[in-house]
Protein backbone atom coordinates (compact mmCIF):
# COMPACT_ATOMS: atom_id res chain seq x y z
CA UNK A 1 0.00 0.00 0.00
CA UNK A 2 2.68 2.39 1.10
CA UNK A 3 4.84 1.24 -1.77
CA UNK A 4 2.19 1.95 -4.34
CA UNK A 5 1.62 5.43 -2.90
CA UNK A 6 5.31 6.22 -3.15
CA UNK A 7 5.40 4.82 -6.64
CA UNK A 8 2.45 6.98 -7.63
CA UNK A 9 4.15 10.07 -6.28
CA UNK A 10 7.35 9.37 -8.18
CA UNK A 11 5.81 8.16 -11.41
CA UNK A 12 2.92 10.62 -11.47
CA UNK A 13 4.73 13.75 -12.60
CA UNK A 14 6.89 11.78 -15.03
CA UNK A 15 3.93 10.05 -16.60
CA UNK A 16 2.06 13.26 -17.25
CA UNK A 17 5.03 15.07 -18.70
CA UNK A 18 4.94 14.98 -22.50
CA UNK A 19 6.35 16.70 -25.50
CA UNK A 20 3.47 19.15 -25.62
CA UNK A 21 3.71 19.91 -21.90
CA UNK A 22 7.40 20.71 -22.18
CA UNK A 23 6.56 23.10 -24.99
CA UNK A 24 3.66 24.78 -23.23
CA UNK A 25 5.27 25.02 -19.82
CA UNK A 26 8.35 26.70 -21.25
CA UNK A 27 7.57 30.13 -22.62
CA UNK A 28 10.42 31.45 -24.75
CA UNK A 29 11.85 34.73 -23.48
CA UNK A 30 13.90 37.04 -25.68
CA UNK A 31 16.71 39.20 -24.27
CA UNK A 32 17.33 42.75 -25.48
CA UNK A 33 19.62 41.55 -28.27
CA UNK A 34 17.33 38.76 -29.38
CA UNK A 35 18.84 35.71 -27.62
CA UNK A 36 16.09 33.17 -27.00
CA UNK A 37 15.86 31.74 -23.52
CA UNK A 38 13.73 28.81 -22.39
CA UNK A 39 13.86 26.61 -19.32
CA UNK A 40 11.89 23.92 -17.56
CA UNK A 41 12.17 23.35 -13.84
CA UNK A 42 12.17 19.60 -14.26
CA UNK A 43 11.98 17.34 -11.24
CA UNK A 44 12.18 19.66 -8.19
CA UNK A 45 13.85 16.98 -6.05
CA UNK A 46 16.68 16.46 -8.47
CA UNK A 47 19.92 18.30 -7.66
CA UNK A 48 20.88 18.24 -11.35
CA UNK A 49 20.59 20.94 -13.96
CA UNK A 50 21.65 21.09 -17.57
CA UNK A 51 22.27 24.02 -19.85
CA UNK A 52 22.65 24.17 -23.62
CA UNK A 53 23.95 26.99 -25.73
CA UNK A 54 22.54 26.47 -29.21
CA UNK A 55 23.91 28.43 -32.17
CA UNK A 56 22.32 28.23 -35.59
CA UNK A 57 25.63 27.54 -37.29
CA UNK A 58 25.35 23.93 -38.40
CA UNK A 59 26.67 22.59 -41.65
CA UNK A 60 23.66 23.82 -43.65
CA UNK A 61 24.97 27.38 -43.31
CA UNK A 62 28.35 26.54 -44.87
CA UNK A 63 29.28 27.94 -48.26
CA UNK A 64 31.90 26.75 -50.75
CA UNK A 65 34.52 28.85 -48.92
CA UNK A 66 33.60 27.52 -45.48
CA UNK A 67 32.91 23.83 -46.20
CA UNK A 68 33.69 21.94 -43.01
CA UNK A 69 33.77 25.02 -40.76
CA UNK A 70 30.86 23.80 -38.63
CA UNK A 71 32.73 20.60 -37.79
CA UNK A 72 35.80 22.62 -36.78
CA UNK A 73 33.64 24.99 -34.74
CA UNK A 74 32.19 22.05 -32.83
CA UNK A 75 35.68 20.69 -32.17
CA UNK A 76 36.74 24.11 -30.85
CA UNK A 77 34.14 23.88 -28.08
CA UNK A 78 35.62 24.45 -24.58
CA UNK A 79 39.09 25.31 -25.94
CA UNK A 80 41.18 28.27 -24.71
CA UNK A 81 39.22 31.48 -24.31
CA UNK A 82 40.40 35.00 -23.47
CA UNK A 83 39.59 34.49 -19.79
CA UNK A 84 40.13 30.79 -19.19
CA UNK A 85 42.39 28.11 -20.54
CA UNK A 86 40.87 24.90 -21.78
CA UNK A 87 42.79 23.08 -19.04
CA UNK A 88 41.12 25.20 -16.40
CA UNK A 89 37.64 24.79 -17.90
CA UNK A 90 38.05 21.02 -17.84
CA UNK A 91 39.58 20.81 -14.37
CA UNK A 92 36.90 23.06 -12.91
CA UNK A 93 34.21 21.02 -14.63
CA UNK A 94 35.72 17.89 -13.08
CA UNK A 95 35.79 19.51 -9.65
CA UNK A 96 32.13 20.40 -10.08
CA UNK A 97 31.31 16.92 -11.31
CA UNK A 98 29.98 18.37 -14.56
CA UNK A 99 29.90 16.94 -18.06
CA UNK A 100 30.78 19.12 -21.05
CA UNK A 101 29.59 18.17 -24.53
CA UNK A 102 29.85 19.78 -27.94
CA UNK A 103 27.58 18.56 -30.67
CA UNK A 104 27.02 19.46 -34.31
CA UNK A 105 23.87 18.80 -36.30
CA UNK A 106 23.05 20.00 -39.78
CA UNK A 107 21.32 23.04 -38.30
CA UNK A 108 22.88 23.78 -34.93
CA UNK A 109 26.10 23.75 -32.97
CA UNK A 110 25.30 22.90 -29.35
CA UNK A 111 27.53 23.27 -26.30
CA UNK A 112 25.97 21.43 -23.39
CA UNK A 113 26.76 21.25 -19.68
CA UNK A 114 25.23 18.92 -17.14
CA UNK A 115 25.97 20.02 -13.58
CA UNK A 116 24.58 20.55 -10.09
CA UNK A 117 22.08 23.37 -9.65
CA UNK A 118 24.47 25.46 -7.50
CA UNK A 119 27.01 25.56 -10.31
CA UNK A 120 24.64 26.94 -12.95
CA UNK A 121 25.83 30.60 -12.72
CA UNK A 122 29.43 29.51 -13.20
CA UNK A 123 28.65 27.33 -16.22
CA UNK A 124 26.47 29.97 -17.91
CA UNK A 125 29.60 32.12 -17.69
CA UNK A 126 31.72 29.35 -19.22
CA UNK A 127 29.26 28.79 -22.07
CA UNK A 128 29.15 32.53 -22.79
CA UNK A 129 32.95 32.60 -22.95
CA UNK A 130 33.01 29.61 -25.29
CA UNK A 131 30.65 31.38 -27.66
CA UNK A 132 32.08 34.87 -27.53
CA UNK A 133 35.72 34.68 -26.42
CA UNK A 134 37.27 31.50 -27.83
CA UNK A 135 40.78 32.32 -29.05
CA UNK A 136 40.94 30.00 -32.10
CA UNK A 137 44.75 30.05 -31.77
CA UNK A 138 46.83 28.52 -34.54
CA UNK A 139 48.58 25.96 -32.35
CA UNK A 140 45.18 24.80 -31.09
CA UNK A 141 43.90 24.57 -34.63
CA UNK A 142 46.63 22.03 -35.35
CA UNK A 143 45.33 19.85 -32.47
CA UNK A 144 41.70 20.38 -33.41
CA UNK A 145 42.42 19.50 -37.05
CA UNK A 146 43.71 16.08 -35.95
CA UNK A 147 40.49 15.35 -34.06
CA UNK A 148 38.39 16.58 -36.96
CA UNK A 149 40.37 14.50 -39.45
CA UNK A 150 39.86 11.37 -37.35
CA UNK A 151 36.12 11.98 -36.97
CA UNK A 152 35.77 12.62 -40.70
CA UNK A 153 37.75 9.53 -41.57
CA UNK A 154 35.73 7.28 -39.27
CA UNK A 155 32.51 8.76 -40.66
CA UNK A 156 33.69 8.08 -44.20
CA UNK A 157 34.57 4.50 -43.33
CA UNK A 158 31.20 3.79 -41.71
CA UNK A 159 28.85 2.74 -44.53
CA UNK A 160 25.64 3.69 -42.67
CA UNK A 161 26.88 7.23 -41.95
CA UNK A 162 28.10 7.51 -45.52
CA UNK A 163 24.74 6.39 -46.94
CA UNK A 164 22.72 8.75 -44.71
CA UNK A 165 25.00 11.66 -45.66
CA UNK A 166 24.56 10.60 -49.27
CA UNK A 167 20.77 10.79 -49.22
CA UNK A 168 20.98 14.29 -47.73
CA UNK A 169 23.33 15.32 -50.51
CA UNK A 170 21.14 13.77 -53.20
CA UNK A 171 17.97 15.28 -51.74
CA UNK A 172 19.04 18.82 -50.86
CA UNK A 173 22.34 19.31 -52.80
CA UNK A 174 23.80 22.30 -50.93
CA UNK A 175 22.48 23.65 -47.60
CA UNK A 176 21.05 20.63 -45.77
CA UNK A 177 22.98 18.48 -48.25
CA UNK A 178 26.33 19.70 -46.88
CA UNK A 179 28.30 17.03 -45.09
CA UNK A 180 28.32 17.04 -41.30
CA UNK A 181 32.00 16.15 -41.46
CA UNK A 182 34.80 18.34 -42.77
CA UNK A 183 36.03 17.13 -46.18
CA UNK A 184 39.60 15.86 -46.44
CA UNK A 185 40.69 18.99 -48.31
CA UNK A 186 38.63 21.55 -46.44
CA UNK A 187 39.13 25.19 -47.45
CA UNK A 188 39.11 25.91 -43.70
CA UNK A 189 42.80 25.71 -42.87
CA UNK A 190 43.40 28.25 -40.10
CA UNK A 191 41.93 29.13 -36.74
CA UNK A 192 41.02 32.52 -38.19
CA UNK A 193 38.78 30.92 -40.81
CA UNK A 194 36.84 29.14 -38.04
CA UNK A 195 36.62 32.39 -36.07
CA UNK A 196 35.16 34.22 -39.06
CA UNK A 197 32.57 31.49 -39.58
CA UNK A 198 31.62 31.61 -35.89
CA UNK A 199 31.40 35.39 -35.80
CA UNK A 200 29.22 35.41 -38.90
CA UNK A 201 26.75 33.21 -37.07
CA UNK A 202 26.94 34.93 -33.68
CA UNK A 203 24.05 37.35 -33.72
CA UNK A 204 21.40 37.46 -31.03
CA UNK A 205 18.71 36.03 -33.31
CA UNK A 206 20.69 32.87 -34.01
CA UNK A 207 21.54 31.98 -30.41
CA UNK A 208 19.41 30.24 -27.79
CA UNK A 209 20.21 29.33 -24.19
CA UNK A 210 18.01 26.57 -22.83
CA UNK A 211 18.13 24.75 -19.53
CA UNK A 212 16.46 22.17 -17.34
CA UNK A 213 16.35 22.41 -13.58
CA UNK A 214 16.66 26.20 -13.73
CA UNK A 215 14.08 28.92 -13.42
CA UNK A 216 13.68 30.81 -16.76
CA UNK A 217 13.94 34.23 -15.10
CA UNK A 218 17.14 33.27 -13.29
CA UNK A 219 18.56 31.98 -16.55
CA UNK A 220 17.63 35.19 -18.39
CA UNK A 221 19.31 37.23 -15.65
CA UNK A 222 22.50 35.12 -15.81
CA UNK A 223 22.63 35.41 -19.59
CA UNK A 224 22.10 39.18 -19.32
CA UNK A 225 25.11 39.43 -17.02
CA UNK A 226 27.35 37.30 -19.24
CA UNK A 227 29.30 38.12 -22.39
CA UNK A 228 26.33 37.00 -24.47
CA UNK A 229 24.59 40.30 -23.65
CA UNK A 230 27.10 42.11 -25.89
CA UNK A 231 26.33 40.10 -29.02
CA UNK A 232 25.05 42.20 -31.91
CA UNK A 233 21.27 42.01 -31.95
CA UNK A 234 20.78 41.79 -35.70
CA UNK A 235 17.72 39.97 -36.93
CA UNK A 236 18.16 36.31 -37.80
CA UNK A 237 19.39 37.19 -41.28
CA UNK A 238 19.90 33.90 -43.03
CA UNK A 239 21.79 33.79 -46.27
CA UNK A 240 19.49 34.00 -49.25
CA UNK A 241 18.77 30.73 -50.99
CA UNK A 242 19.09 28.73 -47.78
CA UNK A 243 15.57 27.32 -47.95
CA UNK A 244 15.74 23.57 -48.34
CA UNK A 245 14.22 22.12 -51.49
CA UNK A 246 13.82 18.37 -51.89
CA UNK A 247 14.69 17.08 -55.34
CA UNK A 248 13.72 13.48 -55.99
CA UNK A 249 15.32 11.07 -58.41
CA UNK A 250 19.03 11.61 -57.66
CA UNK A 251 21.39 8.93 -56.42
CA UNK A 252 24.88 8.93 -54.92
CA UNK A 253 27.11 5.89 -55.35
CA UNK A 254 30.08 5.35 -53.05
CA UNK A 255 32.31 2.60 -54.41
CA UNK A 256 33.12 -0.05 -51.82
CA UNK A 257 34.36 -3.58 -52.34
CA UNK A 258 33.04 -4.71 -48.96
CA UNK A 259 31.12 -8.02 -49.10
CA UNK A 260 28.13 -6.26 -47.53
CA UNK A 261 26.47 -3.53 -49.56
CA UNK A 262 24.21 -0.78 -48.20
CA UNK A 263 21.47 1.18 -49.89
CA UNK A 264 19.59 4.12 -48.37
CA UNK A 265 16.28 5.04 -49.97
CA UNK A 266 14.74 8.32 -48.74
CA UNK A 267 11.55 10.28 -49.37
CA UNK A 268 10.93 13.96 -48.76
CA UNK A 269 8.17 14.74 -46.25
CA UNK A 270 6.83 17.36 -43.89
CA UNK A 271 9.14 17.69 -40.85
CA UNK A 272 6.16 17.23 -38.51
CA UNK A 273 5.31 13.79 -39.87
CA UNK A 274 8.88 12.51 -40.40
CA UNK A 275 9.14 10.51 -37.19
CA UNK A 276 5.70 8.93 -37.48
CA UNK A 277 6.37 7.90 -41.08
CA UNK A 278 9.64 6.37 -39.91
CA UNK A 279 7.70 4.34 -37.34
CA UNK A 280 5.27 3.30 -40.08
CA UNK A 281 8.16 1.76 -42.01
CA UNK A 282 8.38 -0.14 -38.76
CA UNK A 283 11.76 -1.81 -38.68
CA UNK A 284 12.54 -1.03 -35.06
CA UNK A 285 12.74 -4.06 -32.85
CA UNK A 286 10.41 -3.60 -29.90
CA UNK A 287 10.09 -7.18 -28.67
CA UNK A 288 13.14 -9.22 -27.87
CA UNK A 289 12.60 -12.33 -29.96
CA UNK A 290 10.49 -10.87 -32.72
CA UNK A 291 11.44 -8.71 -35.66
CA UNK A 292 7.98 -7.17 -35.61
CA UNK A 293 4.89 -7.56 -37.73
CA UNK A 294 5.38 -4.68 -40.15
CA UNK A 295 5.59 -5.52 -43.85
CA UNK A 296 9.23 -4.51 -44.17
CA UNK A 297 10.50 -6.42 -41.16
CA UNK A 298 8.66 -9.57 -42.26
CA UNK A 299 10.17 -9.22 -45.72
CA UNK A 300 13.67 -8.73 -44.33
CA UNK A 301 13.35 -11.69 -41.97
CA UNK A 302 12.12 -13.95 -44.78
CA UNK A 303 14.75 -12.92 -47.31
CA UNK A 304 17.72 -12.65 -44.94
CA UNK A 305 18.78 -9.04 -45.27
CA UNK A 306 18.53 -6.11 -42.89
CA UNK A 307 16.40 -2.99 -43.08
CA UNK A 308 16.57 -0.02 -40.75
CA UNK A 309 14.22 2.95 -40.93
CA UNK A 310 15.50 6.50 -40.41
CA UNK A 311 13.84 9.88 -40.23
CA UNK A 312 15.17 13.43 -40.01
CA UNK A 313 13.13 16.53 -39.17
CA UNK A 314 14.62 19.95 -39.94
CA UNK A 315 13.07 23.38 -39.65
CA UNK A 316 11.74 23.42 -43.20
CA UNK A 317 12.19 19.89 -44.53
CA UNK A 318 11.94 16.27 -43.50
CA UNK A 319 13.47 13.08 -44.76
CA UNK A 320 12.22 9.56 -44.10
CA UNK A 321 13.43 6.29 -45.49
CA UNK A 322 15.04 2.95 -45.02
CA UNK A 323 18.61 1.68 -45.05
CA UNK A 324 18.93 -1.78 -46.63
CA UNK A 325 22.01 -3.92 -45.96
CA UNK A 326 22.55 -7.16 -47.86
CA UNK A 327 25.35 -9.27 -49.29
CA UNK A 328 26.82 -7.43 -52.26
CA UNK A 329 25.44 -9.86 -54.86
CA UNK A 330 21.88 -9.66 -53.50
CA UNK A 331 21.57 -5.95 -52.83
CA UNK A 332 19.77 -5.15 -56.09
CA UNK A 333 17.06 -7.76 -55.56
CA UNK A 334 16.67 -6.77 -51.91
CA UNK A 335 16.21 -3.10 -52.75
CA UNK A 336 13.69 -3.90 -55.49
CA UNK A 337 11.63 -5.99 -53.07
CA UNK A 338 11.81 -3.27 -50.40
CA UNK A 339 10.69 -0.65 -52.93
CA UNK A 340 7.76 -2.80 -54.05
CA UNK A 341 6.73 -3.42 -50.43
CA UNK A 342 6.87 0.29 -49.61
CA UNK A 343 4.70 1.15 -52.60
CA UNK A 344 2.15 -1.55 -51.92
CA UNK A 345 2.01 -2.24 -48.19
CA UNK A 346 3.38 0.91 -46.55
CA UNK A 347 1.86 3.57 -48.77
CA UNK A 348 -1.51 1.91 -48.40
CA UNK A 349 -1.04 0.73 -44.83
CA UNK A 350 -3.90 -0.94 -43.00
CA UNK A 351 -5.53 0.99 -40.11
CA UNK A 352 -3.92 -1.28 -37.51
CA UNK A 353 -0.45 -0.57 -38.92
CA UNK A 354 -1.20 3.17 -38.77
CA UNK A 355 -2.35 2.73 -35.17
CA UNK A 356 0.86 0.87 -34.28
CA UNK A 357 2.99 3.59 -35.86
CA UNK A 358 1.15 6.35 -34.00
CA UNK A 359 1.56 4.50 -30.69
CA UNK A 360 5.25 3.81 -31.36
CA UNK A 361 5.85 7.48 -32.15
CA UNK A 362 4.13 8.58 -28.96
CA UNK A 363 6.31 6.17 -26.95
CA UNK A 364 9.52 7.30 -28.69
CA UNK A 365 8.74 10.96 -28.09
CA UNK A 366 7.89 10.37 -24.42
CA UNK A 367 11.04 8.28 -24.07
CA UNK A 368 13.24 11.03 -25.48
CA UNK A 369 11.60 13.62 -23.27
CA UNK A 370 12.18 11.60 -20.13
CA UNK A 371 15.86 12.53 -20.37
CA UNK A 372 17.49 15.88 -19.73
CA UNK A 373 19.26 15.63 -23.06
CA UNK A 374 16.00 15.08 -24.92
CA UNK A 375 14.33 17.95 -23.08
CA UNK A 376 17.20 20.27 -23.95
CA UNK A 377 17.03 19.27 -27.62
CA UNK A 378 13.29 19.91 -27.71
CA UNK A 379 13.64 23.24 -25.90
CA UNK A 380 16.43 24.36 -28.23
CA UNK A 381 14.33 23.52 -31.27
CA UNK A 382 11.32 25.33 -29.82
CA UNK A 383 13.38 28.38 -28.85
CA UNK A 384 14.90 28.73 -32.32
CA UNK A 385 11.56 28.00 -33.97
CA UNK A 386 12.92 24.96 -35.74
CA UNK A 387 10.63 22.01 -35.21
CA UNK A 388 7.90 23.01 -32.83
CA UNK A 389 5.45 21.50 -35.32
CA UNK A 390 7.05 18.09 -34.88
CA UNK A 391 6.15 18.11 -31.21
CA UNK A 392 2.44 17.79 -31.72
CA UNK A 393 0.66 14.49 -31.30
CA UNK A 394 0.27 12.29 -34.34
CA UNK A 395 -3.16 12.13 -35.88
CA UNK A 396 -3.88 8.68 -37.39
CA UNK A 397 -5.92 10.01 -40.31
CA UNK A 398 -3.25 12.59 -41.18
CA UNK A 399 -0.59 9.89 -40.96
CA UNK A 400 -2.48 7.62 -43.36
CA UNK A 401 -2.87 10.37 -45.96
CA UNK A 402 0.77 11.49 -45.52
CA UNK A 403 1.92 7.90 -46.07
CA UNK A 404 -0.11 7.71 -49.29
CA UNK A 405 1.53 10.78 -50.82
CA UNK A 406 5.06 10.48 -49.37
CA UNK A 407 5.68 6.81 -50.17
CA UNK A 408 4.45 7.22 -53.75
CA UNK A 409 6.66 10.26 -54.45
CA UNK A 410 10.03 10.14 -56.20
CA UNK A 411 12.72 9.17 -53.67
CA UNK A 412 16.47 9.80 -53.55
CA UNK A 413 19.06 7.15 -52.80
CA UNK A 414 22.64 6.56 -51.77
CA UNK A 415 24.45 3.30 -52.39
CA UNK A 416 27.61 2.05 -50.71
CA UNK A 417 28.82 -0.88 -52.75
CA UNK A 418 29.85 -1.78 -56.27
CA UNK A 419 28.28 0.27 -59.05
CA UNK A 420 27.91 -2.96 -61.08
CA UNK A 421 25.73 -4.76 -58.54
CA UNK A 422 23.83 -1.97 -56.81
CA UNK A 423 20.28 -0.83 -57.55
CA UNK A 424 19.47 2.50 -59.20
CA UNK A 425 16.66 4.70 -57.98
CA UNK A 426 15.14 5.45 -61.39
CA UNK A 427 14.49 1.75 -62.03
CA UNK A 428 12.63 1.10 -58.78
CA UNK A 429 9.25 2.06 -60.20
CA UNK A 430 8.50 5.25 -58.24
Amino acid at each position, binding site marked *: MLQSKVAARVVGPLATRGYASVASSAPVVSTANGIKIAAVDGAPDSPLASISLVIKAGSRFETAETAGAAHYLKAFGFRNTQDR*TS*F*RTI*REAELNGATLTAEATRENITYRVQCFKEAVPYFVQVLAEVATATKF*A*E*HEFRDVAKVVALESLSARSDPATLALGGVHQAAFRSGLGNSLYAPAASPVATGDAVRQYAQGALTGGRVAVVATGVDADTLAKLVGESGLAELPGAAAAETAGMAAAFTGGAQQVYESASPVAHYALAFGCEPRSAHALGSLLGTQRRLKWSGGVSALSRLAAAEGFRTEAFSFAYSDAGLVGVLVSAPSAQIKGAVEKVAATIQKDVAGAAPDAIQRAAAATAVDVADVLATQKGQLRALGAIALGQSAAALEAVDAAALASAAKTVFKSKPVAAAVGLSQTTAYVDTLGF
Partner: protein
Amino acid sequence: MEAIARVVQNNGAFRAICRPLAGTWVKLSGYRRLGLRYDDLLREETPIIQEAIGRLSRQETDLRVYRQKCAFQLSLSHQELPRDQWTKAEDDYKYLQPLVDEVAAEHAERDAFNSMAAVRK
Protein backbone atom coordinates in the same frame (compact mmCIF):
# COMPACT_ATOMS: atom_id res chain seq x y z
CA MET B 1 62.44 38.95 -6.23
CA GLU B 2 59.67 39.74 -8.71
CA ALA B 3 58.27 42.34 -6.35
CA ILE B 4 61.63 44.10 -6.26
CA ALA B 5 61.85 43.97 -10.04
CA ARG B 6 58.39 45.50 -10.35
CA VAL B 7 59.21 48.32 -7.94
CA VAL B 8 62.43 49.06 -9.80
CA GLN B 9 60.64 49.00 -13.16
CA ASN B 10 57.89 51.31 -12.00
CA ASN B 11 60.27 53.73 -10.29
CA GLY B 12 60.30 56.91 -12.41
CA ALA B 13 63.70 58.13 -11.28
CA PHE B 14 65.33 54.78 -11.89
CA ARG B 15 63.82 54.62 -15.38
CA ALA B 16 65.03 58.12 -16.15
CA ILE B 17 68.58 57.04 -15.31
CA CYS B 18 68.43 53.70 -17.14
CA ARG B 19 66.63 54.72 -20.34
CA PRO B 20 69.61 56.45 -21.97
CA LEU B 21 71.90 53.60 -20.97
CA ALA B 22 69.62 50.91 -22.42
CA GLY B 23 70.29 51.83 -26.03
CA THR B 24 74.01 51.84 -25.47
CA TRP B 25 73.81 48.50 -23.66
CA VAL B 26 72.00 46.89 -26.60
CA LYS B 27 74.45 48.42 -29.06
CA LEU B 28 77.43 47.10 -27.10
CA SER B 29 75.99 43.61 -26.67
CA GLY B 30 76.33 43.29 -30.42
CA TYR B 31 73.62 40.79 -31.37
CA ARG B 32 72.04 43.25 -33.76
CA ARG B 33 75.27 43.33 -35.75
CA LEU B 34 74.72 39.64 -36.53
CA GLY B 35 71.14 40.30 -37.66
CA LEU B 36 69.56 38.70 -34.55
CA ARG B 37 66.68 39.86 -32.44
CA TYR B 38 66.73 39.87 -28.64
CA ASP B 39 64.22 36.99 -28.43
CA ASP B 40 66.58 34.80 -30.52
CA LEU B 41 68.91 34.81 -27.51
CA LEU B 42 66.42 33.29 -25.06
CA ARG B 43 67.69 29.99 -23.73
CA GLU B 44 65.97 27.35 -25.84
CA GLU B 45 66.52 24.24 -23.78
CA THR B 46 63.53 24.48 -21.46
CA PRO B 47 60.16 22.82 -21.94
CA ILE B 48 58.42 26.20 -21.74
CA ILE B 49 60.44 27.82 -24.51
CA GLN B 50 60.28 24.68 -26.64
CA GLU B 51 56.49 24.82 -26.42
CA ALA B 52 56.49 28.57 -27.14
CA ILE B 53 58.67 28.05 -30.24
CA GLY B 54 56.25 25.34 -31.35
CA ARG B 55 53.42 27.89 -31.22
CA LEU B 56 55.14 30.40 -33.51
CA SER B 57 53.55 30.84 -36.91
CA ARG B 58 55.25 29.11 -39.81
CA GLN B 59 56.65 32.39 -41.14
CA GLU B 60 58.11 33.46 -37.79
CA THR B 61 59.72 30.05 -37.37
CA ASP B 62 61.32 30.22 -40.81
CA LEU B 63 62.67 33.74 -40.22
CA ARG B 64 64.03 32.71 -36.83
CA VAL B 65 65.90 29.73 -38.25
CA TYR B 66 67.26 31.89 -41.10
CA ARG B 67 68.53 34.55 -38.68
CA GLN B 68 70.20 31.94 -36.50
CA LYS B 69 71.91 30.27 -39.46
CA CYS B 70 73.23 33.62 -40.70
CA ALA B 71 74.46 34.58 -37.24
CA PHE B 72 76.15 31.20 -36.79
CA GLN B 73 77.93 31.53 -40.11
CA LEU B 74 79.03 35.10 -39.35
CA SER B 75 80.28 34.05 -35.93
CA LEU B 76 82.28 31.16 -37.43
CA SER B 77 83.96 33.40 -39.95
CA HIS B 78 84.55 36.22 -37.44
CA GLN B 79 82.58 38.68 -39.49
CA GLU B 80 79.78 41.16 -38.97
CA LEU B 81 76.98 42.11 -41.31
CA PRO B 82 77.46 45.33 -43.27
CA ARG B 83 76.04 48.20 -41.27
CA ASP B 84 72.91 48.63 -43.41
CA GLN B 85 71.90 45.02 -42.69
CA TRP B 86 72.06 45.24 -38.88
CA THR B 87 68.79 44.58 -37.10
CA LYS B 88 66.95 47.88 -36.81
CA ALA B 89 65.53 48.90 -33.46
CA GLU B 90 61.93 48.70 -34.78
CA ASP B 91 62.52 45.12 -36.04
CA ASP B 92 63.83 44.03 -32.65
CA TYR B 93 60.36 43.45 -31.19
CA LYS B 94 59.40 40.69 -28.79
CA TYR B 95 58.00 38.05 -31.10
CA LEU B 96 58.54 35.14 -28.70
CA GLN B 97 58.26 36.59 -25.20
CA PRO B 98 54.43 36.90 -25.20
CA LEU B 99 54.17 33.20 -26.12
CA VAL B 100 56.71 32.30 -23.43
CA ASP B 101 54.65 34.22 -20.88
CA GLU B 102 51.48 32.48 -22.04
CA VAL B 103 53.03 29.01 -21.76
CA ALA B 104 54.61 29.84 -18.40
CA ALA B 105 51.21 30.94 -17.10
CA GLU B 106 49.68 27.68 -18.33
CA HIS B 107 52.39 25.65 -16.59
CA ALA B 108 51.90 27.61 -13.37
CA GLU B 109 48.15 27.03 -13.60
CA ARG B 110 48.66 23.32 -14.14
CA ASP B 111 50.99 23.13 -11.12
CA ALA B 112 48.49 25.03 -9.02
CA PHE B 113 45.69 22.62 -9.93
CA ASN B 114 47.91 19.57 -9.44
CA SER B 115 48.94 20.63 -5.94
CA MET B 116 45.49 21.75 -4.90
CA ALA B 117 44.31 20.90 -1.40
CA ALA B 118 40.70 19.89 -0.89
CA VAL B 119 38.87 21.90 1.75
CA ARG B 120 35.83 20.36 3.39
CA LYS B 121 32.97 22.84 3.48
